[in-house]
Structure formats: structure tokens, C-alpha cells
């Protein structure tokens, strides 16, 4: 039968620790936390250094400012993040974790010796992991949860209480650690009971007569003899870090420092639960007094890529951005770079007063690619490269083209560049030509539905497909027509006599649709209204030689355009 063993993690001065966690520069300094709304702002918590400096509970902000201490406003969001980090720390070691109070958690470590080592090592590891998460905690191991809690609250650092030695080890602790009602503590003080050893030595009947059942419970706690089952908690998997800035941040560089700190904490928490993320949500609260009047660009989808679906401005002056990643990742530096590039492309527009960063937890990418598969860019580097490319050309101009299932000319859409994992097809030393024309078709190449339909076929080998180079947008041209055929073309740089002509090919479509607004990543020239046109292939002779062009005439307006050149 397993011996019950419990470890308690206690964070002293939790309110201060929650502040120091997001501002590591405050470590080792005297810090006091203020609470309340002006003008009644008072000291709600302080660390030991601040107490030594003379700060007392209940001091007003003005009084506290006279002392050499750092003053910070209390932030419930930061405390919630710190508490979540504390639970993550415990969950990294044991699935049975009791969420005792905001500053204390207890975990069941019975049976973990073979997996994680003996209790002293495990306690040291717990303290180290808490420190990695930005919390300096006391850790105590005891046979029952309450003894562990009191030891963690009373002794600094790591404490190990062997089974059966609870009363002996807890005896030296003051009765305050029991967190009893003030009147009971006052009574015990009047009796001269200062520590737990004295309380444990009192006769039980006499205590019940004077203090009731609560007195008996306190005595059992003092003896470390309270046996109760652990109540495991299953907190939701939410990973969110918040920082309220004392002074609004206007520049991106200092904002990057803030984001870096939050990302480090977030990644440490995810790492403690052996998780990664594929989506980051950044929420910025802006200074309402300095928001520009100009409408902000409401980008709905740089959809393809990792990023940004929305930029919403709510009545609360919130700016929200999403960064979606193709694969689960856990690299705070990469995330920071992506956020920097994103904010550089879409500046907030006003100073930032509060930053909230949340991550969607997912299981990390398992395994690795095949040894003999073609090399591909590392996912994180590819993502970073795409983000950097988006800084050079616009986001909608990067991605993989997808031919749409329509006869409309130049109908395609840009989609996110996320190639499938290579399947390790055995490529021949010289791969066969994948597409050839057996006979010259009526048109130099198929397109649209024809292109889709011919995919996968491989006719007899003769000539490679002759490609079209498009002019986007098509060039408006003046075309001289004789006997129904174009004989001369004049446009900006393209002009000359038609040496040879082929056509026309008439096409039309989408007449059943009205004027539709194209989707952001669909080629705007090839979507929306109906089309009807006659196409010609012409060879123009000029001083540069003969060049083949595709021209077309819009049937509704009679206007001519040069669509591209064959090359």
C-alpha cells in the first residue's frame, strides 16, 4: 500500500509576486501593491523588503510614496495568471492537484518516487519549476495535505516532514499559520499559546469547553493529525497573460519588451503542461483619449497565412489580432518576431494601456519527417519568412495559387502556403515530362476547367506547353480590324502589324450573377460580373522580332485589351 504523501506549494506575498512575475526587474526590490480607486488608494500588500523599509498595511498612496519602495496597482488579471501558473507548475508533476487558495496548491505525490525521484528531489524540482514560471515559492512535503500547507507557509524554501513527525516539525511554527479567526487567535494569545507545540499540548476536553469544535480542529491541525482526502481540481486549459501598463506605451519597441515577457511566461506555462500552441490572440486596450479619428484598416483575412483575421475596434477601444500558425509551436522568440512584424504592418494607432496575450493549447507536433524525404523549410523559419515577405509585398500577394473551377479567364485565388508533407514518392533520376501536347491544340494551352480536366494526363511527347505571361491588369489597346480580323495593334509599348492571327474564340459566362464583390484573396479581375468576349492570338512583328500575344475584345463595350504574351 502506498504511503500518502502530499506536497504543498505556497507563494509568499502572492499579490506582490503576481506583480513581480510580469516585471522581473522588480525582483529583490521593495515592492508594495496598492488597491482602491482614487482618492482612497491604500497599500494592500507588500514584500518583506518593503516592510523593512517602513511600509505598513493600510497606508495611503501618498504616505507610501515617501518611502523608497516601488508602488504598483493591484491587478486581478495578473493574479489570475499567476495562480494559473501555480497550478500549471503542480500539474507538470502530478495530475491530482488541489486548488487550495490563490497562493497555495497541494498535489498528491504518492507513488511518484520511481518516476520523479524521492520527495526531497521532487520538492526541489517543484521549487525550480515555480521559479521558472516567475514565482518564488516555498515547498513542503508531508503525509497529509494540511501539515504540508502549514509547513510551506511557515518554513521558507523546501521542507520535508517524514511521516509521523508532523507534530514535532510543526511545533515551532506560530499559531498564525493556522489562519484561525481573529478572536480565537486573540484568546490563544491571552493564554500564552504562541506556537503550535503549545497548542498541541493543551488538553482536548478543555479546548472544546472553551473554544468549541473549532478549537479541537485547530489543535489537530497543530499536531498534524488531520486526515482528509485531497480534492483534485480540473481547471480549464486556458493560457492567458495580462499586463496593465502604468504608463501608456506609444512606441513599438517598448511594447515588444512587454510582449516578450508575456510570451516567455506563456511558453513556460505551456511547456509545463507539455503543450504547444497554434494560435496566439493579442488584445490591446488603447488609450481612448488619443485614438486617431481615421478609420482603421479592417483586414478580414490575410486569411491564408498565419495571420490576422480581424482588427476589431470595440467601444472599449480594443484591438484584437490573431496569429494562426500552420503547426503547433512553442518558441517565444519566434512568436515575438511574428507579433512585431504584425504590429509593424498594422500599428495600433494609439498608445497601449493594457496587453493581453492568450494561446490556444494544442498537442505539440509529434515526431519528425522522413530521413529520405526532400528537404523543406523548417516550419518556424518558413512562417517567419512569410511574415517578412508580407512586409515587402502585401499579404494578399503571397501564397499558393489555386485554379478555380470555372471557365472565367485568369480565375484563381491565393491561398495559404502550407504544402502537404512529402509522401516520399520515389522520383526517377530523370523525371518524365509531366505535361506535353501530342498535337498542337486549337489554343496554345488549356485553362480553367480544361486545365483541371487535363491534369494527370500525359499524352505523347512532342512539345512543351507554351506558357502565357499575363499583363495584370490587361492593357487597353487600339486595334485596327479589317475583314473581321485584327491587322494592327497599338498600345503603350506594344504596337505593330499583325503578322499572323488565329481566332476568334468566343466565351462568356456568369451572366446569371449580378455584380458581386470579389473576396479578398480571389483575383479581383476575374471575379464578379459576367463576361463575354472574343479572343485572338496574334503574332506581332516588330524590331525585336515576332512576339505572340493574346488579345480580346469585350463584346458589351467593343473595347480591346492585350491580355498577355506567349512565352
Amino acid at each position: 500500500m502506498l504511503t500518502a504523501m502530499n506536497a504543498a506549494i505556497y507563494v509568499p506575498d502572492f499579490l506582490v509576486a503576481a506583480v513581480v512575475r510580469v516585471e522581473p526587474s522588480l525582483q529583490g526590490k521593495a515592492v508594495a501593491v496598492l488597491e482602491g480607486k482614487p482618492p482612497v488608494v491604500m497599500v494592500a500588500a507588500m514584500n518583506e523588503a518593503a516592510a523593512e523599509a517602513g511600509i505598513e498595511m493600510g497606508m495611503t498612496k501618498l504616505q507610501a510614496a515617501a518611502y523608497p519602495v516601488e508602488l504598483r496597482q493591484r491587478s486581478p488579471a495578473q493574479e489570475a495568471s499567476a495562480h494559473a501558473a501555480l497550478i500549471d507548475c503542480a500539474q507538470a508533476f502530478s495530475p491530482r492537484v488541489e486548488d487550495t487558495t490563490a497562493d497555495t496548491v497541494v498535489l498528491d505525490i504518492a507513488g511518484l518516487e520511481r518516476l520523479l525521484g524521492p520527495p526531497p528531489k521532487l520538492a526541489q524540482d517543484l521549487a525550480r519549476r515555480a521559479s521558472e514560471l516567475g514565482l518564488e515559492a516555498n515547498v513542503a512535503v508531508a503525509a497529509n495535505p494540511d501539515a504540508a500547507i502549514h509547513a510551506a507557509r511557515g518554513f521558507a524554501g523546501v521542507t520535508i516532514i517524514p511521516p509521523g513527525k508532523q507534530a514535532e516539525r510543526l511545533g515551532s511554527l506560530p499559531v498564525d499559520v493556522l489562519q484561525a479567526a481573529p478572536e480565537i487567535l486573540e484568546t490563544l494569545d491571552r493564554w500564552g499559546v504562541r506556537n503550535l507545540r503549545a497548542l498541541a499540548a493543551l488538553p482536548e476536553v478543555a479546548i472544546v469547553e472553551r473554544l468549541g469544535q473549532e478549537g479541537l480542529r485547530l489543535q489537530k491541525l497543530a499536531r498534524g493529525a488531520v486526515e482528509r482526502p485531497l480534492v483534485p481540481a480540473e481547471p480549464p486549459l486556458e493560457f492567458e497573460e495580462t499586463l496593465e501598463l502604468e504608463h501608456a506605451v506609444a512606441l513599438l519597441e517598448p511594447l515588444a519588451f512587454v510582449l516578450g515577457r508575456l510570451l516567455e511566461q506563456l511558453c513556460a506555462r505551456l511547456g509545463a503542461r507539455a503543450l504547444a500552441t497554434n494560435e496566439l490572440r493579442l488584445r490591446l486596450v488603447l488609450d481612448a483619449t488619443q485614438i486617431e479619428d481615421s478609420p482603421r484598416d479592417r483586414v478580414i483575412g490575410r486569411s491564408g497565412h498565419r495571420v490576422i483575421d480581424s482588427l476589431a475596434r470595440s467601444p472599449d477601444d480594443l484591438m484584437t489580432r490573431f496569429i494562426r500558425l500552420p503547426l503547433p509551436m512553442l518558441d517565444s522568440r519566434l512568436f515575438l518576431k511574428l507579433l512585431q512584424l504584425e504590429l509593424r504592418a498594422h500599428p495600433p494607432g494609439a498608445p497601449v494601456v493594457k496587453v493581453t496575450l492568450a494561446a490556444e493549447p494544442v498537442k505539440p507536433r509529434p515526431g519528425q519527417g522522413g530521413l529520405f524525404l526532400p528537404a523543406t523549410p523548417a516550419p518556424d523559419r518558413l512562417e517567419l519568412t512569410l511574415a517578412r515577405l508580407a512586409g515587402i509585398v502585401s499579404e494578399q500577394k503571397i501564397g499558393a495559387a489555386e485554379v478555380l473551377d470555372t471557365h472565367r479567364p485568369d480565375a484563381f485565388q491565393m491561398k495559404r502556403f502550407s504544402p502537404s508533407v512529402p509522401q516520399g514518392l520515389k522520383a526517377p533520376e530523370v523525371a518524365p515530362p509531366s505535361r506535353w501536347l501530342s498535337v498542337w491544340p486549337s489554343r496554345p494551352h488549356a485553362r480553367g476547367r480544361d486545365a483541371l480536366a487535363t491534369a494527370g494526363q500525359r499524352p505523347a511527347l512532342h512539345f512543351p506547353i507554351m506558357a502565357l505571361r499575363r499583363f495584370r491588369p490587361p492593357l487597353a489597346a487600339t486595334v485596327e480590324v479589317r475583314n473581321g480580323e485584327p491587322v494592327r495593334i497599338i498600345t503603350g509599348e506594344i504596337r505593330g502589324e499583325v503578322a499572323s492571327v488565329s481566332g476568334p474564340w468566343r466565351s462568356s459566362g456568369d451572366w446569371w450573377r449580378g455584380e458581386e464583390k470579389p473576396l479578398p484573396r480571389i483575383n479581383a479581375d476575374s471575379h464578379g460580373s459576367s463576361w463575354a468576349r472574343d479572343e485572338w492570338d496574334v503574332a506581332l512583328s516588330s524590331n525585336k522580332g515576332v512576339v505572340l500575344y493574346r488579345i480580346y475584345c469585350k463584346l458589351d463595350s467593343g473595347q480591346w485589351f492585350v491580355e498577355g504574351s506567349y512565352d
Partner: protein
Amino acid sequence: MSTLHVFPSPAASRRALTGIEGVVPASRLGARPQPRTIPTGIPQVDEITGGVPRGGLTEIFGQASSGRTSLLLALLAQMTAREELCALVDASDAFDPHSAAAAGVDLERVLWVRCEKVSRFKCHVSRHPRETRNVKRETFSRVEQALRAADLLLQAGGFGLVVMDLGDIPPAIARRVPLASWFRFRRAVENTATALVVVEQAASAKSCASLVLKTQHSAISSQPHSNQQSAFSSQQKRESSPHIRVCCAGCGWKSRF
């Protein structure tokens, strides 16, 4: 008392050294290992060039309608058939996905970067009223965008083929690309499995190119035709099919077919 040192003759030294196992005379070290190449998918080109070299810069240049893009699509089709990733930096936004799909290119494996006429990006700072004066605005021409994008893609690594399409950029502008940029590109792909291909109207990378392909077409028939059939008959097409001249850097024109 003087000492006379007698040195063995070079021939004798060579004979002595070649007798030792594993020692190669320096005179034979000039033979560099053949670079790994990618077949273009056009047997005639592969027969002469052996394919596009990995770890090197290849230039495909020629006038419009000379077959540069067709050759490029054939190469892209070969690479994507091998499940390798390709990047196409399209300076003129001239790439036609329909032609590529018809040529057998797996578009899912081609990262298409479409350079814009003018790209402006501002930022570095927020639009805070006090900081507005510090907002930087940068404008890049299409060629600058293409160079920057290609640089990023080469630095990222992992792509089997990176194509910089300057095919519609006038040679006068393309020649303004500093030689240092071409040197940097060449250094970036050296000793990697990436092939860098530049499509343009006139060769401009000079000695930085490992392989230079010039495409040109022969005369096209200007016979009158009827509306009912294509102006370019099979025979005429055969005549107008691209001719390719192949050149190895620094050794002049090698062959023509």
C-alpha cells in the same frame, strides 16, 4: 665546409608520391566534382546542360515569346513532381496559374510572391500624434521587392528551386542590379541543395551565373489563314519552337540546337 642538398626531380617526386595510397597529384585536383543537377524536363536541354545545377545561379534569358517561361514551367513541373518546394518571385506579376497547371506544376508546392507596382510600408512606431513625424515610409520598386524577397527566401533555405522572374523588366533596369547582389545570391545558394533561376531579357549576372541559357525563336510564318482554324499550324509551331543556346560561365557559347 659546404653541404650539397640534392633535391629529387619533380618527375621523380611525382612518381614517389603516386606510389603512396590515397595521395592525389595536385595536377589532378582541378577536376571539380560534378554539381548535382535538376532535369528541366526537356530532353534536348538536359542532353546538353545536364540540367539546372543545384547550389548555383542559372540565367534563362531571351526576348518575349522565345520560350523562357515554357522552360521555366517545365522545370517547376519537374521539381514539384519530386515533392520539392519551389518559390517564384514574380517581379511583374505575370505568372499564369492556368498555364502552370496545364504544364503539370503542382501549384500547392509553389510559393508565389507577386511583386506590386509600388509597395509602401510604414511603421516602426505607432501612429501616436507625437510620433507621427517619425513614421518611416519606404517605397520599393518591383525589382527591389524581387531582390529582397529572393534574398529572404534563399536565407530561409529548404526550397529546392527559387525563381526570380524578371522577364518583363526592361534590360536597362535589370542591368542596374548591382553585381554585389548577384554575388550575394550565389554565395547564399552555394553548398545548398537550392537552385536559383533568374528569367530575364538579357543576361546580367555575368560571372556569378553557373549556367546561362539563351532562348530564341526562329521566324514565324505569316501566311494568311482562315478564321476557322488556328493560325499556327503544327508545322509552323515546330518552326517557331524555341531555340536554346547554352553557355557555361566563362567558356563562351557551347552549342546551339
